[in-house]
Protein backbone atom coordinates (compact mmCIF):
# COMPACT_ATOMS: atom_id res chain seq x y z
CA UNK A 1 0.00 0.00 0.00
CA UNK A 2 1.34 3.40 -0.97
CA UNK A 3 0.03 5.39 1.99
CA UNK A 4 1.63 3.37 4.77
CA UNK A 5 1.44 5.30 8.00
CA UNK A 6 3.03 4.47 11.33
CA UNK A 7 0.76 1.77 12.72
CA UNK A 8 0.41 3.12 16.26
CA UNK A 9 -0.70 6.50 14.99
CA UNK A 10 -3.13 5.05 12.49
CA UNK A 11 -4.82 2.84 15.08
CA UNK A 12 -5.99 5.89 16.93
CA UNK A 13 -7.77 7.55 13.98
CA UNK A 14 -8.81 4.79 11.62
CA UNK A 15 -12.41 3.61 11.84
CA UNK A 16 -12.80 -0.06 12.62
CA UNK A 17 -14.53 -2.79 10.69
CA UNK A 18 -16.00 -5.31 13.12
CA UNK A 19 -15.79 -8.88 11.98
CA UNK A 20 -16.81 -12.11 13.61
CA UNK A 21 -15.34 -15.34 12.36
CA UNK A 22 -17.45 -18.33 13.34
CA UNK A 23 -15.42 -21.50 13.46
CA UNK A 24 -15.73 -25.06 14.58
CA UNK A 25 -12.50 -25.20 16.53
CA UNK A 26 -10.22 -27.94 15.29
CA UNK A 27 -12.05 -28.59 12.01
CA UNK A 28 -9.71 -28.26 9.00
CA UNK A 29 -11.82 -25.70 7.11
CA UNK A 30 -12.05 -23.52 10.19
CA UNK A 31 -8.32 -23.70 10.84
CA UNK A 32 -7.56 -22.65 7.25
CA UNK A 33 -10.01 -19.75 7.45
CA UNK A 34 -8.38 -18.48 10.64
CA UNK A 35 -4.98 -18.51 8.95
CA UNK A 36 -6.36 -16.72 5.88
CA UNK A 37 -7.98 -14.05 8.02
CA UNK A 38 -4.71 -13.45 9.87
CA UNK A 39 -3.06 -12.90 6.49
CA UNK A 40 -5.74 -10.35 5.64
CA UNK A 41 -5.17 -8.55 8.93
CA UNK A 42 -1.55 -8.02 8.00
CA UNK A 43 -2.59 -5.97 4.95
CA UNK A 44 -2.69 -2.31 5.78
CA UNK A 45 -6.11 -0.91 4.99
CA UNK A 46 -7.65 2.44 5.77
CA UNK A 47 -9.59 0.53 8.39
CA UNK A 48 -8.80 -1.53 11.38
CA UNK A 49 -10.03 -5.07 11.23
CA UNK A 50 -11.44 -5.82 14.65
CA UNK A 51 -11.81 -9.59 14.59
CA UNK A 52 -13.59 -11.76 17.10
CA UNK A 53 -13.30 -15.52 16.77
CA UNK A 54 -16.40 -17.41 17.89
CA UNK A 55 -16.17 -21.14 18.41
CA UNK A 56 -19.65 -22.49 17.67
CA UNK A 57 -18.84 -25.71 19.48
CA UNK A 58 -18.63 -23.66 22.70
CA UNK A 59 -21.23 -21.01 21.96
CA UNK A 60 -24.16 -22.26 19.93
CA UNK A 61 -26.30 -19.32 21.05
CA UNK A 62 -24.03 -16.96 19.14
CA UNK A 63 -24.38 -19.11 16.03
CA UNK A 64 -28.15 -19.10 16.49
CA UNK A 65 -28.21 -15.36 16.99
CA UNK A 66 -26.17 -14.67 13.88
CA UNK A 67 -27.92 -17.38 11.85
CA UNK A 68 -24.70 -19.20 11.20
CA UNK A 69 -25.39 -22.71 9.92
CA UNK A 70 -22.17 -23.40 8.14
CA UNK A 71 -18.61 -22.87 9.26
CA UNK A 72 -16.25 -21.20 8.75
CA UNK A 73 -18.34 -18.10 8.34
CA UNK A 74 -17.13 -14.52 8.40
CA UNK A 75 -19.70 -11.91 9.37
CA UNK A 76 -19.24 -8.18 8.92
CA UNK A 77 -21.71 -6.56 11.27
CA UNK A 78 -20.48 -2.96 11.59
CA UNK A 79 -20.75 -0.86 9.53
CA UNK A 80 -24.00 -2.06 7.92
CA UNK A 81 -25.05 -3.62 5.61
CA UNK A 82 -24.26 -6.97 7.08
CA UNK A 83 -22.14 -9.31 5.00
CA UNK A 84 -21.70 -13.03 5.39
CA UNK A 85 -18.92 -14.94 3.68
CA UNK A 86 -18.63 -18.68 4.03
CA UNK A 87 -15.67 -20.88 3.33
CA UNK A 88 -11.97 -20.90 4.01
CA UNK A 89 -11.57 -17.31 2.70
CA UNK A 90 -9.03 -18.66 0.23
CA UNK A 91 -9.72 -15.95 -2.36
CA UNK A 92 -8.39 -12.82 -0.70
CA UNK A 93 -9.48 -10.48 -3.51
CA UNK A 94 -13.04 -11.71 -3.19
CA UNK A 95 -13.00 -11.24 0.57
CA UNK A 96 -11.63 -7.72 0.29
CA UNK A 97 -14.31 -6.87 -2.27
CA UNK A 98 -17.12 -8.40 -0.22
CA UNK A 99 -16.05 -6.53 2.90
CA UNK A 100 -16.07 -3.26 0.89
CA UNK A 101 -12.51 -2.60 2.01
CA UNK A 102 -11.47 -1.33 -1.42
CA UNK A 103 -14.56 0.70 -2.12
CA UNK A 104 -14.39 2.47 1.20
CA UNK A 105 -10.73 3.06 0.77
CA UNK A 106 -11.36 4.71 -2.58
CA UNK A 107 -14.11 6.88 -1.18
CA UNK A 108 -11.72 8.14 1.43
CA UNK A 109 -9.12 8.82 -1.25
CA UNK A 110 -11.59 10.70 -3.40
CA UNK A 111 -12.81 13.04 -0.68
CA UNK A 112 -9.92 15.52 -0.76
CA UNK A 113 -10.17 15.96 -4.54
CA UNK A 114 -13.83 17.03 -4.44
Amino acid at each position, binding site marked *: MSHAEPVAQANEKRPAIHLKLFVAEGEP*NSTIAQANLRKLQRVNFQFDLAVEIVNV*LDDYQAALEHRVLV*TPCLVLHTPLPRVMI*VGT*LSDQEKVIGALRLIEQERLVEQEPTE
Partner: protein
Amino acid sequence: MPPPSSELTASPSDSLPPKTATGIAGLDEILLGGLPAGRTTLVRGGPGTGKTVLALEFIYRGALRGEPGVYVSFEETVATLRQNARALDWDNVESLEQDGRMVLFNPDLPATLLQTGEFDIQGLLAILDGHIKKIGASRIVIDASDVLLRLFRTTEDREDQLFLLYQWLAKRKQTALLTLKISGEQPSTYDRHEYMADCVMHIDNRVAGQIATRRLRVIKYRGSGFLSNEFPCLIASGGMQLMPISRSELETHEQDQVSTGNSGLDLLLEGGYQSGTCILIAGSTGTGKSILASEFAVAATQRGERVLYVNFEEGLGSFIRGMRSAGLDLASPHEQGMLHILAALPEMLGSEEHLLRLFRIIEEFDPAHVVVDAISACQRMGSEAVAFDFLVRLLNHCRSRGVTCIYLNQVEPDRSSHWISGVGISSLIDALMVLEQKWPGGSHVRSLLIIKHRGNRHSHNYHSFRITDDGIVIDERDSVSSSGQKEPS
Protein backbone atom coordinates in the same frame (compact mmCIF):
# COMPACT_ATOMS: atom_id res chain seq x y z
CA MET B 1 -36.01 -56.94 -2.61
CA PRO B 2 -38.17 -58.87 -0.21
CA PRO B 3 -39.97 -61.85 -1.67
CA PRO B 4 -43.43 -60.65 -2.65
CA SER B 5 -45.08 -63.80 -1.43
CA SER B 6 -44.37 -63.25 2.23
CA GLU B 7 -45.62 -60.48 4.45
CA LEU B 8 -42.58 -60.58 6.68
CA THR B 9 -39.14 -60.31 5.23
CA ALA B 10 -37.69 -61.79 8.38
CA SER B 11 -39.23 -63.24 11.46
CA PRO B 12 -39.04 -61.08 14.57
CA SER B 13 -36.52 -62.56 16.94
CA ASP B 14 -34.40 -61.72 19.95
CA SER B 15 -31.76 -60.22 17.71
CA LEU B 16 -34.02 -57.37 16.63
CA PRO B 17 -32.42 -53.98 17.08
CA PRO B 18 -33.96 -51.80 19.80
CA LYS B 19 -36.84 -49.77 18.46
CA THR B 20 -38.52 -46.50 19.22
CA ALA B 21 -42.29 -46.52 18.81
CA THR B 22 -43.35 -43.58 16.70
CA GLY B 23 -46.84 -43.46 18.18
CA ILE B 24 -48.26 -42.93 14.68
CA ALA B 25 -51.40 -45.00 14.14
CA GLY B 26 -50.52 -48.14 12.21
CA LEU B 27 -46.90 -47.28 11.47
CA ASP B 28 -45.39 -49.15 14.39
CA GLU B 29 -47.20 -52.32 13.35
CA ILE B 30 -45.75 -51.99 9.86
CA LEU B 31 -42.28 -51.42 11.32
CA LEU B 32 -42.76 -54.29 13.80
CA GLY B 33 -42.29 -51.99 16.75
CA GLY B 34 -41.02 -48.67 15.50
CA LEU B 35 -38.01 -46.88 14.08
CA PRO B 36 -34.49 -48.14 14.82
CA ALA B 37 -33.59 -46.54 18.16
CA GLY B 38 -30.54 -44.30 18.12
CA ARG B 39 -30.28 -44.59 14.36
CA THR B 40 -31.33 -42.68 11.30
CA THR B 41 -34.40 -43.26 9.18
CA LEU B 42 -35.01 -41.66 5.82
CA VAL B 43 -38.48 -40.80 4.56
CA ARG B 44 -38.53 -39.94 0.90
CA GLY B 45 -41.29 -38.94 -1.46
CA GLY B 46 -42.60 -36.34 -3.84
CA PRO B 47 -43.99 -33.00 -2.78
CA GLY B 48 -47.29 -33.07 -0.93
CA THR B 49 -47.08 -36.71 0.07
CA GLY B 50 -47.23 -36.11 3.81
CA LYS B 51 -43.58 -36.44 4.83
CA THR B 52 -43.76 -33.35 7.00
CA VAL B 53 -46.88 -34.54 8.81
CA LEU B 54 -45.27 -37.90 9.50
CA ALA B 55 -42.08 -36.27 10.75
CA LEU B 56 -43.90 -33.70 12.87
CA GLU B 57 -46.11 -36.36 14.38
CA PHE B 58 -43.03 -38.41 15.30
CA ILE B 59 -41.77 -35.48 17.37
CA TYR B 60 -45.22 -34.62 18.74
CA ARG B 61 -46.02 -38.19 19.90
CA GLY B 62 -42.56 -38.40 21.43
CA ALA B 63 -43.12 -35.16 23.35
CA LEU B 64 -46.43 -36.51 24.66
CA ARG B 65 -44.84 -39.71 25.91
CA GLY B 66 -41.87 -38.06 27.58
CA GLU B 67 -39.31 -38.40 24.81
CA PRO B 68 -38.34 -34.83 23.95
CA GLY B 69 -37.51 -34.04 20.37
CA VAL B 70 -36.08 -31.40 18.07
CA TYR B 71 -37.78 -30.63 14.78
CA VAL B 72 -35.67 -28.84 12.21
CA SER B 73 -37.38 -27.72 9.03
CA PHE B 74 -35.57 -26.18 6.11
CA GLU B 75 -38.80 -25.43 4.36
CA GLU B 76 -41.40 -24.17 6.75
CA THR B 77 -41.40 -21.45 9.34
CA VAL B 78 -42.11 -22.24 12.95
CA ALA B 79 -45.39 -20.34 12.64
CA THR B 80 -46.48 -22.52 9.71
CA LEU B 81 -45.52 -25.66 11.58
CA ARG B 82 -47.62 -24.60 14.57
CA GLN B 83 -50.48 -23.86 12.20
CA ASN B 84 -50.16 -27.32 10.64
CA ALA B 85 -50.25 -28.82 14.10
CA ARG B 86 -53.43 -26.96 14.98
CA ALA B 87 -55.03 -28.12 11.73
CA LEU B 88 -54.35 -31.68 12.88
CA ASP B 89 -56.06 -30.90 16.19
CA TRP B 90 -52.82 -30.90 18.17
CA ASP B 91 -53.71 -27.96 20.33
CA ASN B 92 -50.96 -28.37 22.89
CA VAL B 93 -47.88 -28.00 20.70
CA GLU B 94 -47.05 -24.56 22.01
CA SER B 95 -47.31 -25.65 25.62
CA LEU B 96 -45.11 -28.66 24.85
CA GLU B 97 -42.58 -26.22 23.45
CA GLN B 98 -42.79 -24.06 26.55
CA ASP B 99 -42.36 -27.11 28.78
CA GLY B 100 -39.16 -27.99 26.95
CA ARG B 101 -40.55 -31.20 25.50
CA MET B 102 -40.13 -30.22 21.89
CA VAL B 103 -38.29 -27.60 19.88
CA LEU B 104 -39.38 -26.35 16.48
CA PHE B 105 -36.54 -24.77 14.57
CA ASN B 106 -36.46 -23.20 11.13
CA PRO B 107 -32.87 -22.26 10.30
CA ASP B 108 -32.72 -19.18 8.19
CA LEU B 109 -30.86 -20.22 5.09
CA PRO B 110 -29.27 -17.30 3.29
CA ALA B 111 -30.75 -16.91 -0.17
CA THR B 112 -27.40 -16.14 -1.67
CA LEU B 113 -24.21 -17.19 -0.08
CA LEU B 114 -20.94 -15.47 -0.69
CA GLN B 115 -18.51 -18.28 -0.84
CA THR B 116 -14.80 -18.63 -1.06
CA GLY B 117 -13.26 -21.98 -0.27
CA GLU B 118 -14.75 -24.99 1.44
CA PHE B 119 -17.13 -25.00 4.36
CA ASP B 120 -19.23 -27.48 6.35
CA ILE B 121 -22.41 -27.75 8.42
CA GLN B 122 -20.66 -27.56 11.81
CA GLY B 123 -22.56 -24.39 12.67
CA LEU B 124 -25.88 -26.14 12.28
CA LEU B 125 -24.67 -29.17 14.19
CA ALA B 126 -23.50 -26.93 17.05
CA ILE B 127 -26.94 -25.30 17.21
CA LEU B 128 -28.64 -28.70 17.15
CA ASP B 129 -26.31 -29.91 19.87
CA GLY B 130 -27.36 -26.93 21.97
CA HIS B 131 -31.06 -27.68 21.46
CA ILE B 132 -30.62 -31.38 22.14
CA LYS B 133 -28.77 -30.78 25.40
CA LYS B 134 -31.19 -28.10 26.52
CA ILE B 135 -34.27 -30.35 26.44
CA GLY B 136 -32.55 -33.73 26.71
CA ALA B 137 -33.84 -34.76 23.28
CA SER B 138 -33.69 -38.32 22.06
CA ARG B 139 -35.62 -37.73 18.83
CA ILE B 140 -34.66 -35.43 16.01
CA VAL B 141 -36.17 -34.63 12.65
CA ILE B 142 -34.44 -32.91 9.79
CA ASP B 143 -37.19 -32.02 7.37
CA ALA B 144 -36.32 -31.16 3.78
CA SER B 145 -32.69 -32.22 4.16
CA ASP B 146 -32.40 -31.71 0.40
CA VAL B 147 -32.74 -27.95 0.91
CA LEU B 148 -29.77 -27.93 3.29
CA LEU B 149 -27.68 -29.91 0.84
CA ARG B 150 -28.43 -27.43 -1.91
CA LEU B 151 -26.04 -25.02 -0.19
CA PHE B 152 -23.30 -27.21 -1.53
CA ARG B 153 -22.50 -27.07 -5.17
CA THR B 154 -20.82 -30.31 -6.04
CA THR B 155 -22.06 -33.83 -5.55
CA GLU B 156 -18.93 -34.70 -3.59
CA ASP B 157 -19.52 -31.82 -1.20
CA ARG B 158 -23.09 -32.90 -0.68
CA GLU B 159 -22.08 -36.46 0.00
CA ASP B 160 -19.40 -35.33 2.43
CA GLN B 161 -21.90 -33.21 4.37
CA LEU B 162 -24.43 -36.00 4.39
CA PHE B 163 -21.83 -38.35 5.75
CA LEU B 164 -20.92 -35.78 8.40
CA LEU B 165 -24.58 -35.45 9.37
CA TYR B 166 -25.17 -39.20 9.62
CA GLN B 167 -22.02 -39.70 11.67
CA TRP B 168 -22.93 -36.86 13.96
CA LEU B 169 -26.45 -38.23 14.52
CA ALA B 170 -25.13 -41.72 15.21
CA LYS B 171 -22.59 -40.41 17.71
CA ARG B 172 -25.33 -38.65 19.65
CA LYS B 173 -27.53 -41.77 19.65
CA GLN B 174 -30.48 -39.79 18.35
CA THR B 175 -33.43 -41.60 16.86
CA ALA B 176 -33.42 -39.47 13.76
CA LEU B 177 -35.81 -39.05 10.91
CA LEU B 178 -34.69 -37.26 7.77
CA THR B 179 -37.02 -36.32 4.98
CA LEU B 180 -36.00 -35.98 1.39
CA LYS B 181 -38.09 -34.55 -1.38
CA ILE B 182 -37.67 -36.39 -4.62
CA SER B 183 -39.23 -35.77 -7.96
CA GLY B 184 -38.52 -37.57 -11.16
CA GLU B 185 -35.00 -38.77 -11.54
CA GLN B 186 -32.89 -39.50 -8.53
CA PRO B 187 -29.50 -37.89 -8.39
CA SER B 188 -26.81 -40.13 -7.01
CA THR B 189 -26.70 -38.20 -3.72
CA TYR B 190 -29.99 -39.83 -2.89
CA ASP B 191 -28.48 -43.27 -3.33
CA ARG B 192 -25.88 -42.38 -0.72
CA HIS B 193 -28.68 -41.18 1.51
CA GLU B 194 -30.42 -44.51 1.26
CA TYR B 195 -27.24 -46.42 1.75
CA MET B 196 -26.40 -44.57 4.96
CA ALA B 197 -29.87 -44.70 6.53
CA ASP B 198 -30.76 -47.72 8.64
CA CYS B 199 -34.39 -47.58 7.60
CA VAL B 200 -35.91 -46.11 4.45
CA MET B 201 -39.57 -45.41 3.82
CA HIS B 202 -41.19 -44.11 0.68
CA ILE B 203 -44.46 -42.23 0.44
CA ASP B 204 -46.14 -41.46 -2.83
CA ASN B 205 -49.31 -39.91 -4.03
CA ARG B 206 -50.53 -41.71 -7.09
CA VAL B 207 -53.53 -40.97 -9.18
CA ALA B 208 -55.13 -44.07 -10.63
CA GLY B 209 -58.61 -44.18 -12.08
CA GLN B 210 -58.86 -40.51 -11.17
CA ILE B 211 -58.44 -41.34 -7.51
CA ALA B 212 -55.53 -39.89 -5.60
CA THR B 213 -54.11 -42.20 -3.00
CA ARG B 214 -51.22 -41.78 -0.59
CA ARG B 215 -49.29 -44.93 0.06
CA LEU B 216 -46.37 -45.73 2.32
CA ARG B 217 -43.89 -48.50 1.75
CA VAL B 218 -40.89 -49.55 3.80
CA ILE B 219 -37.92 -50.01 1.47
CA LYS B 220 -35.36 -51.27 3.92
CA TYR B 221 -34.83 -51.84 7.60
CA ARG B 222 -31.34 -52.92 8.59
CA GLY B 223 -31.44 -55.91 10.91
CA SER B 224 -35.20 -56.14 11.12
CA GLY B 225 -38.21 -57.38 9.26
CA PHE B 226 -41.13 -55.22 8.30
CA LEU B 227 -44.45 -55.52 6.54
CA SER B 228 -43.52 -55.22 2.91
CA ASN B 229 -46.80 -54.18 1.32
CA GLU B 230 -47.82 -50.73 0.29
CA PHE B 231 -50.12 -49.29 2.88
CA PRO B 232 -52.81 -46.67 2.38
CA CYS B 233 -51.91 -43.60 4.28
CA LEU B 234 -54.32 -40.92 5.43
CA ILE B 235 -53.96 -37.55 6.98
CA ALA B 236 -56.94 -36.70 9.11
CA SER B 237 -57.53 -34.68 12.22
CA GLY B 238 -55.43 -36.31 14.89
CA GLY B 239 -52.60 -37.00 12.49
CA MET B 240 -51.48 -39.65 10.10
CA GLN B 241 -53.18 -43.00 9.91
CA LEU B 242 -51.84 -46.07 8.24
CA MET B 243 -53.84 -49.16 7.67
CA PRO B 244 -51.67 -52.16 8.29
CA ILE B 245 -54.03 -54.51 6.54
CA SER B 246 -52.12 -57.57 5.57
CA ARG B 247 -52.90 -59.37 2.40
CA SER B 248 -53.86 -62.48 4.34
CA GLU B 249 -56.60 -60.57 6.11
CA LEU B 250 -57.99 -59.47 2.80
CA GLU B 251 -57.86 -62.99 1.49
CA THR B 252 -60.08 -64.31 4.23
CA HIS B 253 -62.80 -61.98 3.02
CA GLU B 254 -62.34 -62.92 -0.59
CA GLN B 255 -64.16 -66.19 -0.29
CA ASP B 256 -67.11 -64.38 1.16
CA GLN B 257 -68.86 -62.87 -1.81
CA VAL B 258 -72.42 -61.83 -1.28
CA SER B 259 -75.04 -60.96 -3.85
CA THR B 260 -75.56 -57.29 -4.56
CA GLY B 261 -79.30 -57.95 -4.79
CA ASN B 262 -79.12 -57.19 -8.49
CA SER B 263 -78.48 -60.17 -10.75
CA GLY B 264 -77.08 -57.97 -13.54
CA LEU B 265 -74.56 -56.37 -11.22
CA ASP B 266 -73.62 -59.74 -9.72
CA LEU B 267 -72.61 -60.82 -13.22
CA LEU B 268 -70.48 -57.73 -13.78
CA LEU B 269 -68.76 -58.21 -10.41
CA GLU B 270 -68.39 -61.92 -11.09
CA GLY B 271 -70.24 -62.86 -7.93
CA GLY B 272 -71.08 -59.77 -5.95
CA TYR B 273 -69.60 -57.58 -3.22
CA GLN B 274 -67.03 -58.95 -0.83
CA SER B 275 -68.47 -58.89 2.62
CA GLY B 276 -66.46 -57.04 5.25
CA THR B 277 -64.95 -54.64 2.73
CA CYS B 278 -65.81 -51.10 1.77
CA ILE B 279 -67.74 -50.37 -1.40
CA LEU B 280 -68.11 -46.85 -2.68
CA ILE B 281 -70.91 -45.99 -5.09
CA ALA B 282 -70.58 -42.52 -6.55
CA GLY B 283 -72.89 -40.58 -8.82
CA SER B 284 -74.82 -37.38 -9.18
CA THR B 285 -78.30 -36.99 -7.77
CA GLY B 286 -80.96 -39.22 -9.34
CA THR B 287 -78.55 -41.77 -10.78
CA GLY B 288 -79.91 -44.58 -8.60
CA LYS B 289 -77.33 -44.92 -5.83
CA SER B 290 -79.92 -45.34 -3.07
CA ILE B 291 -81.87 -47.87 -5.14
CA LEU B 292 -78.74 -49.95 -5.70
CA ALA B 293 -77.94 -49.85 -1.99
CA SER B 294 -81.54 -50.67 -1.06
CA GLU B 295 -81.59 -53.66 -3.40
CA PHE B 296 -78.55 -54.94 -1.59
CA ALA B 297 -80.16 -54.28 1.79
CA VAL B 298 -83.37 -56.14 0.90
CA ALA B 299 -81.47 -59.12 -0.49
CA ALA B 300 -79.22 -59.26 2.57
CA THR B 301 -82.13 -59.24 5.00
CA GLN B 302 -83.74 -62.03 2.99
CA ARG B 303 -80.56 -64.05 3.52
CA GLY B 304 -80.91 -63.38 7.23
CA GLU B 305 -78.18 -60.71 7.43
CA ARG B 306 -79.02 -57.57 9.37
CA VAL B 307 -78.45 -54.23 7.68
CA LEU B 308 -78.03 -50.77 9.17
CA TYR B 309 -79.00 -48.07 6.67
CA VAL B 310 -77.87 -44.62 7.78
CA ASN B 311 -79.76 -42.03 5.77
CA PHE B 312 -78.38 -38.51 6.00
CA GLU B 313 -80.42 -37.32 3.02
CA GLU B 314 -84.03 -38.25 3.65
CA GLY B 315 -86.54 -38.89 6.41
CA LEU B 316 -87.68 -42.45 7.13
CA GLY B 317 -91.13 -42.10 5.56
CA SER B 318 -90.14 -40.48 2.31
CA PHE B 319 -87.22 -42.87 1.92
CA ILE B 320 -89.44 -45.95 2.27
CA ARG B 321 -92.04 -44.43 -0.10
CA GLY B 322 -89.38 -43.51 -2.64
CA MET B 323 -87.98 -47.02 -2.71
CA ARG B 324 -91.45 -48.51 -2.98
CA SER B 325 -91.88 -46.69 -6.30
CA ALA B 326 -88.81 -48.54 -7.52
CA GLY B 327 -90.40 -51.81 -6.47
CA LEU B 328 -88.47 -52.21 -3.22
CA ASP B 329 -90.17 -53.06 0.01
CA LEU B 330 -88.09 -51.70 2.85
CA ALA B 331 -91.01 -51.49 5.29
CA SER B 332 -91.23 -55.25 5.89
CA PRO B 333 -87.61 -55.94 6.83
CA HIS B 334 -87.72 -52.72 8.85
CA GLU B 335 -90.70 -53.99 10.85
CA GLN B 336 -89.16 -57.44 11.19
CA GLY B 337 -86.12 -55.89 12.81
CA MET B 338 -83.75 -57.03 10.08
CA LEU B 339 -83.26 -53.59 8.61
CA HIS B 340 -82.48 -50.64 10.85
CA ILE B 341 -83.05 -47.36 9.03
CA LEU B 342 -81.48 -44.49 10.89
CA ALA B 343 -82.57 -41.20 9.36
CA ALA B 344 -80.45 -38.41 10.76
CA LEU B 345 -79.56 -34.86 9.93
CA PRO B 346 -75.78 -34.53 9.84
CA GLU B 347 -75.87 -31.05 11.37
CA MET B 348 -77.95 -32.18 14.35
CA LEU B 349 -75.00 -33.68 16.19
CA GLY B 350 -71.24 -33.33 16.22
CA SER B 351 -69.28 -36.01 14.40
CA GLU B 352 -68.20 -37.47 17.72
CA GLU B 353 -71.82 -37.94 18.85
CA HIS B 354 -72.79 -39.36 15.46
CA LEU B 355 -69.96 -41.83 15.71
CA LEU B 356 -70.71 -42.89 19.26
CA ARG B 357 -74.37 -43.36 18.37
CA LEU B 358 -73.47 -45.51 15.38
CA PHE B 359 -70.99 -47.56 17.40
CA ARG B 360 -73.68 -48.17 19.98
CA ILE B 361 -76.22 -49.23 17.35
CA ILE B 362 -73.65 -51.48 15.67
CA GLU B 363 -72.90 -53.02 19.06
CA GLU B 364 -76.57 -53.68 19.89
CA PHE B 365 -78.01 -54.39 16.44
CA ASP B 366 -74.96 -56.33 15.22
CA PRO B 367 -75.46 -55.73 11.50
CA ALA B 368 -73.58 -57.62 8.80
CA HIS B 369 -73.63 -54.56 6.55
CA VAL B 370 -73.80 -50.80 6.99
CA VAL B 371 -74.94 -48.35 4.32
CA VAL B 372 -74.16 -44.63 4.59
CA ASP B 373 -76.32 -42.50 2.29
CA ALA B 374 -74.54 -40.27 1.50
CA ILE B 375 -71.03 -39.62 2.72
CA SER B 376 -71.05 -36.27 0.90
CA ALA B 377 -73.64 -35.06 3.44
CA CYS B 378 -71.24 -35.75 6.30
CA GLN B 379 -69.48 -32.48 5.56
CA ARG B 380 -72.48 -30.85 7.17
CA MET B 381 -71.22 -32.21 10.51
CA GLY B 382 -68.71 -29.38 10.40
CA SER B 383 -66.11 -29.55 7.70
CA GLU B 384 -64.46 -31.76 5.18
CA ALA B 385 -61.86 -32.78 7.74
CA VAL B 386 -64.53 -33.73 10.25
CA ALA B 387 -66.39 -35.78 7.65
CA PHE B 388 -63.20 -37.50 6.66
CA ASP B 389 -62.38 -38.38 10.24
CA PHE B 390 -65.90 -39.65 10.87
CA LEU B 391 -65.91 -41.86 7.78
CA VAL B 392 -62.46 -43.31 8.39
CA ARG B 393 -63.25 -44.17 11.98
CA LEU B 394 -66.58 -45.70 11.07
CA LEU B 395 -64.90 -47.71 8.33
CA ASN B 396 -62.15 -48.93 10.66
CA HIS B 397 -64.70 -49.91 13.25
CA CYS B 398 -66.72 -51.85 10.68
CA ARG B 399 -63.63 -53.45 9.21
CA SER B 400 -62.45 -54.67 12.58
CA ARG B 401 -65.83 -56.38 13.05
CA GLY B 402 -66.01 -57.76 9.51
CA VAL B 403 -68.97 -55.52 8.69
CA THR B 404 -69.43 -54.45 5.06
CA CYS B 405 -69.51 -50.70 4.50
CA ILE B 406 -71.42 -49.33 1.55
CA TYR B 407 -70.69 -45.67 1.16
CA LEU B 408 -72.76 -43.68 -1.29
CA ASN B 409 -71.22 -40.44 -2.51
CA GLN B 410 -73.23 -37.76 -4.22
CA VAL B 411 -71.12 -35.82 -6.66
CA GLU B 412 -71.68 -32.86 -8.93
CA PRO B 413 -72.87 -33.92 -12.38
CA ASP B 414 -70.39 -33.63 -15.24
CA ARG B 415 -67.45 -33.29 -12.93
CA SER B 416 -66.10 -36.74 -13.30
CA SER B 417 -62.65 -35.70 -12.14
CA HIS B 418 -64.11 -34.87 -8.77
CA TRP B 419 -65.87 -38.13 -8.18
CA ILE B 420 -64.39 -38.64 -4.81
CA SER B 421 -63.40 -35.14 -4.03
CA GLY B 422 -64.10 -33.80 -0.62
CA VAL B 423 -63.82 -37.09 1.15
CA GLY B 424 -60.38 -38.33 0.19
CA ILE B 425 -60.97 -41.79 1.59
CA SER B 426 -60.51 -43.51 -1.72
CA SER B 427 -57.41 -45.33 -0.58
CA LEU B 428 -59.53 -47.29 1.87
CA ILE B 429 -62.09 -48.32 -0.68
CA ASP B 430 -62.05 -51.92 -1.85
CA ALA B 431 -64.59 -51.51 -4.62
CA LEU B 432 -65.65 -48.44 -6.50
CA MET B 433 -68.56 -47.97 -8.85
CA VAL B 434 -69.66 -44.85 -10.62
CA LEU B 435 -73.17 -44.16 -11.89
CA GLU B 436 -73.55 -41.57 -14.63
CA GLN B 437 -76.39 -40.08 -16.59
CA LYS B 438 -76.53 -38.24 -19.87
CA TRP B 439 -79.22 -36.90 -22.16
CA PRO B 440 -78.00 -37.53 -25.70
CA GLY B 441 -80.65 -36.41 -28.18
CA GLY B 442 -83.20 -35.86 -25.44
CA SER B 443 -83.23 -39.42 -24.14
CA HIS B 444 -82.11 -40.24 -20.62
CA VAL B 445 -79.21 -42.67 -20.60
CA ARG B 446 -77.84 -44.03 -17.36
CA SER B 447 -74.63 -46.00 -17.20
CA LEU B 448 -72.54 -47.79 -14.65
CA LEU B 449 -68.80 -48.29 -14.51
CA ILE B 450 -66.87 -50.47 -12.09
CA ILE B 451 -63.57 -48.74 -11.45
CA LYS B 452 -62.10 -51.16 -9.00
CA HIS B 453 -62.93 -54.33 -7.18
CA ARG B 454 -59.86 -55.19 -5.16
CA GLY B 455 -58.63 -58.70 -5.62
CA ASN B 456 -61.47 -59.66 -7.94
CA ARG B 457 -62.18 -59.74 -11.59
CA HIS B 458 -64.81 -57.41 -12.89
CA SER B 459 -66.10 -55.82 -16.06
CA HIS B 460 -64.20 -52.76 -17.25
CA ASN B 461 -66.89 -51.34 -19.50
CA TYR B 462 -69.65 -48.85 -19.19
CA HIS B 463 -72.99 -50.61 -18.88
CA SER B 464 -76.26 -48.86 -19.51
CA PHE B 465 -79.08 -49.44 -17.08
CA ARG B 466 -82.65 -48.36 -16.46
CA ILE B 467 -84.54 -47.61 -13.30
CA THR B 468 -87.83 -49.49 -13.53
CA ASP B 469 -90.79 -50.28 -11.30
CA ASP B 470 -88.87 -53.40 -10.50
CA GLY B 471 -85.56 -51.85 -9.49
CA ILE B 472 -82.45 -51.35 -11.53
CA VAL B 473 -82.14 -53.32 -14.75
CA ILE B 474 -78.72 -53.50 -16.31
CA ASP B 475 -78.96 -53.93 -20.07
CA GLU B 476 -77.89 -57.27 -21.44
CA ARG B 477 -76.44 -55.62 -24.52
CA ASP B 478 -73.06 -54.73 -23.26
CA SER B 479 -71.29 -51.47 -23.31
CA VAL B 480 -72.78 -48.10 -24.11
CA SER B 481 -69.43 -46.50 -24.62
CA SER B 482 -67.61 -46.59 -27.90
CA SER B 483 -64.84 -48.51 -26.21
CA GLY B 484 -66.07 -51.60 -28.03
CA GLN B 485 -65.85 -55.17 -26.86
CA LYS B 486 -66.10 -56.38 -23.35
CA GLU B 487 -62.68 -57.14 -22.01
CA PRO B 488 -62.02 -60.70 -20.96
CA SER B 489 -60.94 -59.10 -17.64
